[in-house]
């Protein structure tokens, strides 16, 4: 009985860390995998999703709809940002990082000015259950399921839809795809909006579990960076396995020494991984296959 309790606790911790890493990173990874661009305003898209979700829930929307609204608003903002700024910088990926950092400054401080330093949150729904004297939040299990669902959804999107085919063609050889009639510009915009929308979804999903402050994006961004760096350019061969490995590191370090050491463990893991696998796990796997 005791062994089961301990095993479940470890599994729960792992699932929690895994969900956090996958959900933090997927929006960033989709954009990076498509365009080789890191969106430093990623955390602010998460913040946007969270704020919209909480406003929606406070206005009486049921939580799932509010989360969906948050994701859609983030995607719309993402499309706008792509149109105004990112589109002009596709030739210069390093400049995109700098420009999106500028956007991140504007978004964080703008939110602080307009909405104040904090916003009333909503409680974590669905209550908790008990196993062996410890109580666990049901909502955390929902988050884990959602992380899996997001991965499955992305897999279906990229493999079974027309958009997915065009997107994968654009990733492989952009000018060839363009020559075959793919409108690569709109593929890029849609992908950027998709990444922003996924960030918004993450914000919406985590909104009930945390306090809403304009700088909440930084809570996610470090984990997102680390997962994308370890994973490399491919969402399925990179982000997912990277999240598994990093979640083990993180949950082990967290239960040993606390939250901060979980993050320090992640950081050390990433520094060692880039020394060994500079192109991330997906680079390693793809080289093995060819």
């Amino acid at each position, binding site marked *: 009985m005791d062994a089961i309790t301990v095993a479940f606790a470890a599994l729960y911790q792992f699932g929690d860390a895994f969900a956090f890493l996958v959900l933090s990173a997927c929006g960033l990874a989709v954009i*990076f995998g498509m365009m*080789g*661009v*890191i969106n*430093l305003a990623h955390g602010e898209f998460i913040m946007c999703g969270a704020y919209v979700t909480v406003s929606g829930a406070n206005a009486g929307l049921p939580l799932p709809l509010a989360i969906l609204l948050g994701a859609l608003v983030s995607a719309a903002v993402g499309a706008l940002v792509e149109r105004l*700024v990112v589109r*002009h*910088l596709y030739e*210069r*990926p*390093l*400049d995109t*990082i*700098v*420009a999106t*950092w*500028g*956007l*991140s*400054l*504007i978004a*964080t*401080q*703008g939110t*602080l*000015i307009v909405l104040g330093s904090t916003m009333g949150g909503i409680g974590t729904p669905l209550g908790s259950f008990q196993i062996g004297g410890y109580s666990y939040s049901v909502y955390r299990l929902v988050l884990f399921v959602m992380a899996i669902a997001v991965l499955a959804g992305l897999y279906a999107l990229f493999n079974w839809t027309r958009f997915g085919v065009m997107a994968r063609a654009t990733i492989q050889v952009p000018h060839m795809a363009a020559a075959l009639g793919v409108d690569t510009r709109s593929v890029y915009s849609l992908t950027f909006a998709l990444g922003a929308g996924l960030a918004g979804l993450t914000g919406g999903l985590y909104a009930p579990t945390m306090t809403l402050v304009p*700088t909440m994006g*930084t809570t996610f*961004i*470090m984990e997102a*960076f*680390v997962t*994308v*760096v370890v994973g490399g350019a491919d969402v399925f061969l990179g982000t997912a396995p990277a999240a598994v490995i990093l979640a083990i590191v993180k949950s082990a370090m967290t239960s040993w020494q606390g939250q*901060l050491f979980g*993050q*320090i463990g992640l*950081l050390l893991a*990433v*520094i*060692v991984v*880039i*020394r*060994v696998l*500079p192109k991330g796990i997906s680079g390693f796997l793809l080289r093995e296959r060819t």
Partner: protein
Amino acid sequence: MNALSRFFARLEGPQTIGRGPVFWIGFLIVLAGACSYPMFSDGYTVGNTVYFFTWVFMALGLSLIWGYGGSLSFGQTAFFGIAGYSYGVLTLNFGAAYGFTLAAVVIALVIAALAALLLGYFLFFGRISGVFLGIVTLSVTLVLERFMAQTAGPEWAIGKARLNGFNGMSNMPPLTIPWPGGDIILFPDVQLYYVVLGLLVLVYLGLRILVNSSFGNVLVAIRENPERAEMLGYDIRKYQLGAFVIGAVLAGLSGVLYTSWGQYITPSSMGMTAAALPIVWVAVGGRSDLTATLIGTLVVLSGFQALTIHGAQYALVVMGFLLVLTVLLAPRGIILAAADLLGRLGKSKRGDA
């Protein structure tokens, strides 16, 4: 005379704008103005000016790494913080007697250099690409900030120095120069101004020599095309690591000077916002030239200071817009774009005549 002209020749080269007697006479006039400035001002204002100067070292270091070397390092403030905290811990433990603060500066810079060497080894010898370099260095900075922010408890102390978590360390002694007949304590006033100004001139001229040397030329070659530089037989990892460590030491110098200037250092000096500001200064002025970076940093900082009076949040929004617009409209930086324009106008005029 010959030695002097040889010295000037090493200050000029393809990697820096500004050459010839006109530029250097202008430089001397500006320097003379900077030297005589305290005579026309009061101690408080001069002390505030020192605050601007302390940041320029970090900006020049970032210009070397990013502008000349082409490696995107977002972690400059990590070394700023490491050196600043090291200075605080050392001086709080050993005091300021016998000129120890100066030794503390050197030790703090060595610690920053070692940290940069260790991190840089993994980054550059792992050959990670430009985009990843930026986000890994930024992650290091963010984790360091969070680590320092949670050191509030009494168990987080090094010797006599409490780290004090989010509130940061304070009350460390300012820089003190041992002097017969009474130590000179460098409070933010005229004396500190001259010391920092002297350091700034030294670092500026030293970096000019560095970037126009063969090291600097190789660094620029790496920025333009890493594969080509490698094919020409240069071990690019060593050059990048070298530039990274020098940049980190300069950021550390900023950190030490800042800590001794205000006698405090907090974790937020390493946070996301703090890390963005050096990027703004360097990008807006013109990252690929030392002079443009120097001028740009001072101009943007004074603009930021002026806006902060109306509210720091607004000032940061303006910084964000400045950064986005610079990247979109003048990717090489506003000062360099203006210099290009002037140069073209001058040339076409001469062509007409």
